[in-house]
């Protein structure tokens, strides 16, 4: 009897200790980022975000070009992704909720999100970049091929299935009686979608967009491969640029000097805080929807 009690106690302790280790890792993760970026934070402070100089030789570091690059690629990709996300959401959430077509589409979108970003980047480099360059030549633009626009296209493609699957789930939660009430008043299917289902699943759609934004902000490999890696604020949407993630990927192993490395960690800290906030907000909305049902 005593032995059993001891074992239960030991078991519970193992559970608590292991779970605490996970918590500890999370806290230490955050603290490490803060500690390692301290020298850059104390040197540049808030000016880090408004200065455009990124000059490792003279140890001057300003992150504005990368922040602009990150915001441009993320929001442009959301914009490109939106009509497609919306279409998939309605098609899978209302038109085809069951059956062969729905299965095939669902499987396809699942597969898309499981392709490694480096493979998508490879395709971007050898298919999309030449294609964009061709258009730039045709329209008399500077034929970079690589740049903000190319990166946004690839990002859009990557976030569509993610955002759509969340938004679609929200659409399927619309109660039947609401839809039937609208039908009984003579509404067409599109009118039911537009005036009943979309308003009802609004918060789920917002959550999908938020979580997709979080992904776009942090996506590294695809962007690094096709954005052109320039340290200047992009002049237009077709110019080469850099995002926070891509500059870290490119320069981390080459960073000589503590201030250089610390500035890169400062960037990582900013990226971490923004994505954490966006994710928590998105998940919070989803949880609220779940509780309501």
């Amino acid at each position, binding site marked *: 009897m005593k032995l059993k009690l001891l074992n239960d106690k030991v078991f519970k302790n193992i559970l608590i200790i*292991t779970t605490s280790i996970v918590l500890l890792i999370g806290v230490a993760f955050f603290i490490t980022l803060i500690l390692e970026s301290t020298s850059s934070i104390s040197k540049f402070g808030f000016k880090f975000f408004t200065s455009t100089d990124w000059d490792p030789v003279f140890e001057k570091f300003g992150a504005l070009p990368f922040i602009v690059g990150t915001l441009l690629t993320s929001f442009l990709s959301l914009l490109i992704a939106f009509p497609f996300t919306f279409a998939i959401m309605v098609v899978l959430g209302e038109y085809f909720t069951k059956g062969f077509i729905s299965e095939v589409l669902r499987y396809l979108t699942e597969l898309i999100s499981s392709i490694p970003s480096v*493979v998508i980047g490879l395709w971007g480099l050898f298919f999309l970049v030449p294609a964009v360059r061709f258009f730039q030549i045709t329209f008399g633009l500077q034929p970079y091929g690589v740049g903000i626009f190319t990166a946004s296209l690839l990002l859009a493609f990557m976030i569509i299935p993610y955002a759509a699957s969340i938004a679609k789930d929200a659409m399927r939660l619309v109660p039947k009686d609401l839809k039937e009430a609208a039908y009984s008043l003579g509404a067409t299917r599109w009118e039911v979608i537009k005036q009943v289902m979309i308003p009802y699943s609004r918060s789920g759609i917002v959550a999908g967009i938020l979580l997709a934004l979080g992904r776009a902000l942090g996506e590294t490999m695809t962007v690094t491969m096709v954005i052109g890696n320039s340290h200047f604020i992009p002049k237009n949407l077709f110019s080469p640029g850099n995002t926070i993630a891509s500059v870290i990927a490119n320069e981390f192993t080459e960073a000589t000097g503590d201030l250089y490395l610390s500035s890169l960690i400062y960037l990582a800290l900013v990226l971490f805080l923004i994505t954490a906030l966006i994710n928590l907000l998105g998940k919070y909305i989803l949880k609220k929807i779940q509780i309501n049902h």
Partner: protein
Amino acid sequence: MNKTSFRRIKNDTYKLGLILLTIISTVPFLLILFFVIKNGIAVINWEFLTSLPKPIGENGGGIINGLIGTGILIIIATIIAIPIGIITGVYLAEYPNNLLSNSVRIVSEIFQGVPSIVVGIIAYFWLVKPMGHFSALSGSFALALILLPMIIKSTEEMVKLVPADIKEASLSLGVPYYRSILKVIIPASLSGILTGALTGIARISGETAPLLFTAFGDSFFNINIFKPISSLPLLIFNYSISPYQAWWAKAWGISFLIVIFILILNILTRILYKKI
């Protein structure tokens, strides 16, 4: 009557348009698949799979270093993440509402969205810097940090799905609590936990960013986990940004291998999922 037919036309147009947009959104995927298969298959042969890379200028050479590296990285990451993930998931499901579980749930949710490059930085400061050099171990650790929240989440959800009666039946027979968990609850939710683990493994097998400053890459045959090691995604990245056509071809070949591997994992996951 005129107004009704207008509404009907509008209804049909929207339906058609949305279906069309959905189909268009899968075109890039089919193009990627087409390119990977077309350019990949041409490169794959026995030598490609079994020999080390050769310096540029020499024909032939393979990617065995990347194959073995990816294998080692995934196995160690799984060994680290699965026990911790399952135990934590069980705790979260069994004690859903205390301070510890609520904070761990937040940590786990944040981790799921952390850009993988940031995870690489942490592994660099925790393992690479103290050890003084890049290593397979630090790469595995980074991958484990990405895998961990996925396993925690799927375990928690699967354990919660096990009906309380089953646990109570076991307890009422005098089976101690820890044995009820180990012998009743975990087996009942095992296929769900495995599904989560396989999805996670599929994801980390293609991760590149966290390996850039941890596993780093190595062009020799290496199975020492305290040394830098190559991986297939790293090779794709390095080869694709190189100026050599012969290396671009290799990048496609490796992409083909990874995509096939992930497809197989996907199918396995589906089979397991149907069992639940």
